[in-house]
């Protein structure tokens, strides 16, 4: 089935099965490799993208359900006002270790800060606990979110 979706502000057409998850459309059909596969079950957050601004596990969303919603991926974050700040904070604090989870972390952090510019520790826990970092870079992830919140 052909589907036309809006990814990072551009219309993209793919011809895939209706139940193909967005993650695999992005990675294998559109060659946007930033969103990562970690569990395929909504448990790790490595595949997090924004769908109409909402942080969403793209491994759990079938292409047929997307319609005209706008999708933002890590590849689009440099052009996103908050996303760019999160990327800069991640660089400044040297957040990544292996880096595999970080696209998902940045997407979740960007969504959090877009909605809640001054998140509490509890807000951070709630918004970020779906994103596993196997390398356990959590102390710096928290520091990165706070740094942006404090406008540093």
């Amino acid at each position, binding site marked *: 089935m052909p589907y036309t979706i809006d990814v990072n502000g551009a219309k993209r057409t793919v011809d895939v099965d209706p139940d193909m998850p967005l993650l695999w459309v992005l990675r294998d059909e559109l060659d946007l490799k930033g969103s990562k596969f*970690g569990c395929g079950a909504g448990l790790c957050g490595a595949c997090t993208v924004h769908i109409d601004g909402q942080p969403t596990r793209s491994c759990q969303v079938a292409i047929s359900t997307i319609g005209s919603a706008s999708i933002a991926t890590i590849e689009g974050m440099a052009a996103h006002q908050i996303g760019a700040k999160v990327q800069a904070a991640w660089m400044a604090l040297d957040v990544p270790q*292996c880096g595999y989870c970080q696209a998902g972390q940045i997407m979740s952090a960007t969504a959090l800060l877009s909605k809640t510019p001054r998140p509490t520790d509890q807000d951070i826990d709630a918004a970020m606990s779906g994103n596993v970092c196997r390398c356990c870079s959590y102390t710096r992830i928290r520091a990165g979110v706070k740094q942006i919140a404090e406008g540093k």
Partner: protein
Amino acid sequence: MTRPLDLSRRALLRASLTIGGGLALQAILPGVAQAAASEGAPITAFVTIAPDGVVTILSKNPEIGQGIRTMLPMLIAEELDVSWKDVRIEQAPLNEAVYGRQHSGGSNSTPENYMRLRRVGAAGRQMLIEAAAQEWSVAPEECETEAGVVHHRKSGRSLTYGALAAKAAARKVPDLASVKLKDPKTFKIIGQRIPGVENARIVTGQPLFGIDVSMPGLLHAVFEKCPVFGGKVKSANIDAIKALPGIHDAFIIQASEANPSKDPEGLVDGVAIVAKSWWTANKAREKLEIVWDEGVGATQSSEGFSALAAKLLGEAPATVLRNDGDADAAMKTATKVLEASYSYPFLSHIVLEPQNCTAHFKDGKIALWAPAQNPGPGRKLVAKTLGLQESDITVHVTRGGGGFGRRLQSDFMAEAAWISRKVEAPVKLLWSRRDDMQHDFYRPAGFHKFKAGLDEKGGLVAFTDHFVTFGKGGKPANSASTMPVTEFPAMLAPNLRYGQSVIESNVPTGPMRAPRSNALGFAFQSFIDELAHAAAKDPVAFRLSLLGEPRSVPSDPAKPEPQKDFNTGRMRNVLARVAELSGWKNRDKLPKGTGMGVAFYFSHLGYFAEVVQATVSTSGAIKLDHVWVVGDIGAQIINPAGAEHQAQGAALDGLGTALGQKVTLEKGRVVEANFDSVLPLRIDQAPPVVVEFITSDFPTTGLGEPALPPVAPALCNAIFAATGKRIRQLPIDTNLLKA
């Protein structure tokens, strides 16, 4: 003319002019026996200096999140004396004859490379100085360098490295063993917090990892293996699978054909499905029907293993590993005797990037792209599996989304290679999370029965351990399932006996971050805490008295190796410091339900002592409040940022494992399949981790692993302090902690 170079343990250096008029240095580093580089061979540049001053350094070891890609080039840049901003880093191709061992494991990269790579940089600097001195007709001793420029202060002349590069390339290369190294006091790069060199690419989602490899015509594969280890395919509905839309091919792989020598890392039986997209291939597995011959493995279960271990622990050990003095006689003189049994489960590595490899077989040669931790042996395995020469196999090492020891085994490379040859096309094999959890080389489970005697002053008079591990033919399966005879308090307790029994099993096991130490640390440092409490001693003070006077305790008294042997003084220092840093002496003032626990461990030449503060609620829920880590890994912390991250990560990793991870066997198969049953630590559980390093006069050693072992026992000891309940089994069962 080509003649073999000196292949002794010394590193060798060659130099040449680059096409662009720069200086190329090739270092041939020792470490792999059959180095085949010869003088006539074209230079494979390790470090190049371009006329514009840009310095390109190859990073030779795989990056799996341990920061090696940043850290190793820092060593060269420091001694070369260039600005870090002028340095570019590229991944070295797999060529162990030239680059030495290119693995990432055992926290070995630092001790193996610290001096060698500094010498490479220093040699380059010396050649540039000589080129400048010749240009100015002055003595090289009158010249100095700074940030990529040679100065002759007397005459006020300066030349950049870029301008000197071509001339330097014509110089005789100095002997690496005798080049002059910098005084560490003058270091400008080593010792600085240098951020990861790929951060910019990571945060923008660039394709860096094995899973991101793409190329024209790429097909995608899954490989369904028998859920029971060692099981064989009897038949499968291959034709039905092939008929599904989007499926390119499907076929049975038989280990008897692909791995006749039964290499434990090599191919096992299964069915490969190849499709245009990974999703399509993976979805076809729902329709896959395989009749397996499950074999003898189908009778194995965790429950059965535990029962067997309990039986073995009731008998005398099959083997005595160490027997000092007379533990039984000394036990009789004790005023207090303690006995306790400890156990821990099989563990999966759960790297976040599942195993994958891209392979392209063409005209009898194959290229592979893999997030490998051990690409050299990986290439050997592929050569054996496909019956190829190693010279026909090119391995591109990609960044790895975590390693933790899992990627030291290269089974996924052999699978991808086989599938690519079969379909005669480039293929990316990707494991699902279930594949990854159910086909690991597991951290072996283990069981211990301790007994110790204390005298009336609380001194340790006797200590015994019966260790039950896993293996074949009465022998531990591999190094990951053995216990070193030097395990603390060996060599510090006069009457001590360690015995071992082995459960026969075909569960694949292998190294996991801080192999064996990650388990032994929990058991030994928890039991030692029990002894401290039984002796009514402060757990820090009790440990200090066990350590005794600062000294080196040789594992072989006939062959003392002060740089490798356990040094009680170094451990005393980190222990005393972590007590200070954590406010240990004020722990009585903590609220009810909150406790502090301490533990230390020596592994991978690193000394670590850690304190965990935890709060246990009446429902048994555990909150991690704070962790303090103090380590001694020698004279120099190369990259304090990377070091801190490794230590924090290791501590949190150990806590997550203790709280929520195990792998259970039932009917020979692993039950757990995803992150809902094996629980990685999450941000809402992660406490602040304070890290401090004590520098000592010892060689700089590695850090990927040694911060991990003390943390689980420190947590369990904190739980005891908080609740009076002793955790003797991992993962921690919070039901036992209900008030």
